């Protein structure tokens, strides 16, 4: 089998599906922000500094609703707690001796989708490399920030005349997650996936969407420990 490239450029290339998914969602975020009364600069700052999609949408609702700043911060931080697991899980998949000297730079880009894509690449035989991770992250980050700016400039109601386009864009992220899941699917992972799915539904119905996400991830990972 020929070795697949692990350069910065190959990382950027691998980020294309993520960028294609991110740009329209970030566009929708920019539109939603201006619709909610935020300035273009504020929408840009939220994407540049927070860089976590779902919690950015929630930040709009919390700030518009006049929720106290510490409460809003705590809610958003709790929502992103799942990211704690991604770094160690990725480094475990990368194997012993995998470089991490420049992780201070590429780890910032370790979102749900970048983590999923990196894992998929490793599962398909690509060797771990920091330049690749940096390229993967920068492509996704660039699409997120630029999509936000374009959405904020287009302004609230930009997609009102195109409901089918808006609907299709709304399905982009679920489609990306499903494709990523298919890309890492193995027979051994099936029980873990089943447990995670059931726990997510149960947690969401019983408590909230955020609780469902945490329940799914933890229950699925625990299922991996129990199942030898």
């Amino acid at each position, binding site marked *: 089998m020929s070795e697949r490239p692990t350069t910065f450029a190959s990382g950027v290339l691998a980020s294309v599906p993520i960028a294609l*998914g991110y740009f329209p969602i970030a566009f929708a975020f920019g539109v939603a922000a201006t619709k909610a009364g935020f300035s273009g600069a504020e929408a840009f700052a939220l994407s540049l500094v927070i860089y976590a999609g779902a919690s950015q949408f929630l930040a709009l609702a919390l700030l518009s609703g006049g929720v106290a700043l510490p409460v809003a911060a705590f809610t958003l931080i709790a929502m992103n707690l799942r*990211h704690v697991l991604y770094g160690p899980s990725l480094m475990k998949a990368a194997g012993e001796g995998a470089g991490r000297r420049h992780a*201070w730079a590429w780890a910032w880009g370790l979102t749900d989708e970048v983590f999923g894509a990196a894992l998929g690449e490793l599962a398909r035989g690509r060797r771990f490399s920091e330049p690749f991770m940096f390229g993967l992250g920068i492509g996704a980050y660039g699409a997120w920030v630029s999509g936000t700016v374009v959405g904020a400039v287009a302004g609230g109601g930009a997609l009102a005349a195109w409901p089918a386009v808006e609907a299709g864009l709304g399905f982009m*992220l679920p489609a990306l997650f*499903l494709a990523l899941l298919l*890309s*890492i699917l193995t027979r051994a992972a099936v029980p873990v*996936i089943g447990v995670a799915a059931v726990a997510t539904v149960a947690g969401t119905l019983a408590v909230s969407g955020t609780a469902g996400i945490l329940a*799914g991830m933890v229950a699925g990972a625990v299922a991996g420990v129990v199942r030898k």
Partner: protein
Amino acid sequence: MRVEVLALAVVVGLANYAFRYGPIAARLGEGRAGGAMARFLAATGPAAIATLVVASVLPMMGTARLPLVAGVLAVLGLWVWRRSVVLATLGGAVAYGAVFALGG
């Protein structure tokens, strides 16, 4: 630029950075291969992605279901056909939008 927006962004952004980089810097989860922590971390990836699939599809279950069925089938079909994440993602979104436009 309102100060409270910037303050919230900085606090949440710093926490995100700590969550993403901190565990790598601290070399968390490094230990015996095949140990409980190793199996936990190996299962985290599939568990996280499966969770995100379900969490992102659940809110769409209550509205138009035909576009959702079309979108999911398109992703599955394109993946089986080409093994391409890009094509499956784009095809799924196009199928969803097309069936939505047809009044599904």
